[in-house]
């Protein structure tokens, strides 16, 4: 899922403080799982903004709402009236949702309440870790199911580098060395010989480097 983290409150306030009306708009799927951008978080953030507005003596009408997903048209039906009547929208969606709202309402300012941080999993309640960078050309079949692109700080395809120590990355003792994990997995699978296969130069044109990506299903 997509993981996001709320921006510092002061940064959010600075973006929105000059509006007379603001809709704080949650997205109740991915970023709700990480307790940052769901409809509940939208309600809390709206309350905090109302308090700040009062403190600062700013006259601002703040409402809150939300939908299940800000990245698909059909979900917007229930919120259409609210959004059309908004002077500005503070979206708690990931960057995709923020842009989707901006595209739908050409003349309405839309601000991001979150920093979209990564594609990751829920390791345990309240703990999320990056697992994918959507490079567009998955190598997991060659690396024992551990992604070196997202989990190695140097995205080394033939690792580990010389900085791997006691299973940890050279940049932090809190980061597992992805290639230690790859080697552990290959060993568990009885495929350690595969380690010596050299991963070829990667085609990064399928990654961000190739420009914005899209794909279209035939017959829809």
């Amino acid at each position, binding site marked *: 899922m997509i993981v996001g983290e709320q921006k510092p409150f002061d940064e959010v306030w600075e973006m929105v403080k000059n509006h007379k009306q603001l809709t704080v708009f949650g997205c109740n799927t991915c970023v709700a799982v990480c307790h940052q951008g769901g409809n509940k978080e939208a309600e809390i953030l709206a309350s905090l903004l109302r308090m700040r507005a009062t403190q600062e003596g700013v006259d601002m009408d703040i409402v809150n709402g939300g939908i299940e997903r800000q990245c698909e048209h059909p979900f917007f039906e229930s919120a259409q009236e609210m959004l059309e009547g908004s002077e500005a929208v503070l979206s708690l969606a990931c960057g995709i949702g923020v842009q989707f709202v901006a595209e739908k309402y050409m003349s309405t300012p839309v601000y991001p309440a979150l920093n979209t941080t990564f594609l990751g999993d829920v390791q345990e309640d309240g703990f999320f870790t990056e697992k994918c960078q959507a490079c567009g050309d998955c190598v997991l079949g060659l690396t024992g199911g551990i992604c070196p692109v997202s989990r190695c700080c140097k995205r080394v*395809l033939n690792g*580990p*580098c*010389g*900085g791997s*120590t006691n299973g940890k990355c050279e940049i932090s003792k809190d980061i597992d060395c992805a290639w*230690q994990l790859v080697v552990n997995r290959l060993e568990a699978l009885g495929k350690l010989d595969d*380690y*010596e296969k*050299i991963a070829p130069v990667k085609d990064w044109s399928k990654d961000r480097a190739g420009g914005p990506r899209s794909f279209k299903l035939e017959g829809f």
Partner: protein
Amino acid sequence: MDIKTNSKLEKIMKSGHMGVSSECGPPRSSDPEGIIKKGHLIKDHVDCINITDNQTSVTRLCSLAACIHLKNEGLEPVLQMVVRDRNRIALQSDILGAASFGINNILCLSGDHQSFGDHPNSQNVFDLDSMQLIQTVRHMRDEGKFLGGDEIKLPPNMFVGAAANPFADPFKIRVPRLAKKVAAGAEFIQTQCVYNLDKFELWMEGIVERGLHEKVFIMPGITPMRSVGMAKYMARAVPGMDVPKELIDRLSGVPKEKQAEEGITIAVEAIQRLKEVTGVSGFHIMAIEWEEKVPEIVERGGLYPRPKID
């Protein structure tokens, strides 16, 4: 053995002599005098001089320019090239540029992560990894082609090296990893600083067992300790460094003003012992900001005079 390039290091090691390389770091300024002076200080005692490429991710005068300065002085530089800062277009371009100045040696590296350096907020590139950079230089040299497939009219003529750290984890893949670098096309290997001689010898045994020492020249890295403080720092803070407790104790047992001398002696003893290890073809002496000590280490290590090669 076939001589493939004009590299002095290649010629020396392929003639059966021990090779000796050293290393100089370029300045954090546009003044080349320091690096030229360092080069002259050691030129008679080493076969070639590595020029580091923004080591520890701290911005410095570029490796290629520093290599050209040494080349202009008649010295033999080794261009260190990290894949952290440049994509395949820039890497290949710099390889051609270096070759155009007659630089005959290259060392292919990943590079320290930028978080260690003076621009921790910078982007990193890592378009290729160090293994793929080795392949790239060999491809350019031997096939006369760019990675993209186009022909290179006058291919670069370089002796291709790589680094190895016998002390990084996991240890069980350290020999396979070297095998991989050899398969990728590495012709010489300069290792991480060797302090744990027993572990290094264990690694070498694995290499000899697989016959890899017959395919690649292995040059253990030797860095003299200047003080017990440096030894403790390297043990604690430098990633992938193995400094045994006995070495720290030995330096601690010596009065402060004698520790540097003891550090040199430890380095010399390491050379003397490792010279006898099957598969060791030379030494890479990295006296960090202490280049003036390289001649003494080379002489006392029994590696002087250096062989003369045309």
